[in-house]
């Protein structure tokens, strides 16, 4: 059970595109910007590499949120991987709705290599939203 004395710190898995968002994270670091420490970063070659199975696997293994971040539309290193990500996440959101996972727990963002500030903003927002929702893991426990 969650202790009241310890505030809930969400665990958020971030799938970051190698060509843009991952560089933005580096830039945020070297620019000494402050952002919340709640993100577990997994570098992928493209947001289009993120199989929806990864997202469900993350939730199942205790993630309170998942952020998929890639290049802006039109800027994909592989021409259209980010469009595939957009389509998959639009679809998988409908599925998560039905399973009872709130919309705010899965987010897709376009963050270019120069947009460290955008990442910080998105990160803060997402952590605040998920803190308000509370932890997901206890809801996955079904005793049979």
């Amino acid at each position: 059970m969650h202790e009241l004395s310890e505030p809930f710190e969400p665990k958020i898995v971030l799938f970051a595109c190698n060509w843009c968002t991952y560089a933005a994270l580096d830039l945020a670091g070297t620019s000494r910007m402050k952002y919340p420490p709640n993100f577990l970063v997994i570098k992928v070659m493209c947001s289009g590499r993120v199989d929806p199975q990864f997202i469900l696997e993350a939730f199942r293994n205790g993630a309170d949120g998942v952020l998929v971040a890639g290049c802006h539309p039109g800027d994909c290193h592989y021409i259209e991987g980010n469009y595939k990500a957009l389509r998959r996440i639009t679809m998988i959101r409908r599925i998560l709705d039905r399973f009872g996972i709130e919309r705010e727990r899965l987010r897709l963002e376009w963050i270019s290599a120069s947009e460290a500030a955008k990442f910080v903003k998105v990160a803060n927002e997402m952590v605040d939203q998920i803190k308000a929702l509370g932890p997901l893991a206890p809801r996955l426990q079904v005793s049979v």
Partner: protein
Amino acid sequence: MTEKPKIAMYWCASCGGCEEATVDLAERILELTNLVDIVFWPVALDFKQEDVEKLPDGSITASLINGGIRVTENRHMVELLRRKSKIVVAYGACSAWGGIPGLANLYGTDELISRAYHEVPSLNNPENVTPQQSVEVDGNRLELPELLPRLLPIDQVIDVDYYVPGCPPTADVTWNAIKTLLSGELPPKGAVIGASDKALCDQCPLNETKPDKVLIKDLKRPHQVIPDPTKCLLTQGLLCLGPATRGGCEALCVKARMPCTGCFGPLDRVTDYGAKTASFISSIIDLQDEEALEEVIDKLPDPVGTFYRYTLAASSLGGSVRNSKS
């Protein structure tokens, strides 16, 4: 004469279709009874639970179990059969991944009972009866098995050796699986037997007409179009799950102009069939504009029922994780 191998067949939470499918073996069932002794098959033969209890542990060569685990009685029976059998086979979609009854995992048991006994339009329940686990009638205590919070594929309750896919498995698939079990050359534990290792498209007569890259602009449901029977159904906008589904059924539905709904389940190495099929369908929708995309996806009234029709209980989340407080 050496003793024949012993086979048991049992049903848990299922519709009886798997039992029908076994009968579909037709004249091959005579060959089957020459090869094996059927020691337990409640649908067809008059052996009782206590007959199974009296058998020595491990004396049944193989138990073919269909249906998922929905009530405590199912759990008790599969545990008993596991103890008595050398090999346990999850036979059919319900047993392997929950099947259609697994869709109930989107609801709590209270909701299920209330829906079934008090809400459905076809109901005739004048005394407003709700099933009780234990009730006293004329001084006798009667008990019913307990409804479990979720339906479980049998491998979440007992150790399972092999899987036979399908809703139901076809007669040929069943026959192949039985031959594999009796061959003495058993595949590695956990294998799917009787079916193909390749996707359904490999067996589909329309596969030749499938372009290298399928792209669609719109989604259609079977009642909305009369499909061209000579062209890949997917290219016609029908949601055919063949590319992500295991083959083995000889494309029965597609031959009847109906798109594959995925009853043979995932291929090897897929961990979440619904997420995988949703992924493949959404990636071939040839739209880049978010609004247009939402509009097309809106045409799918039940995405979970579409993509997880047979596998919801075995999915990563296994069922609803709704916040009960909200």
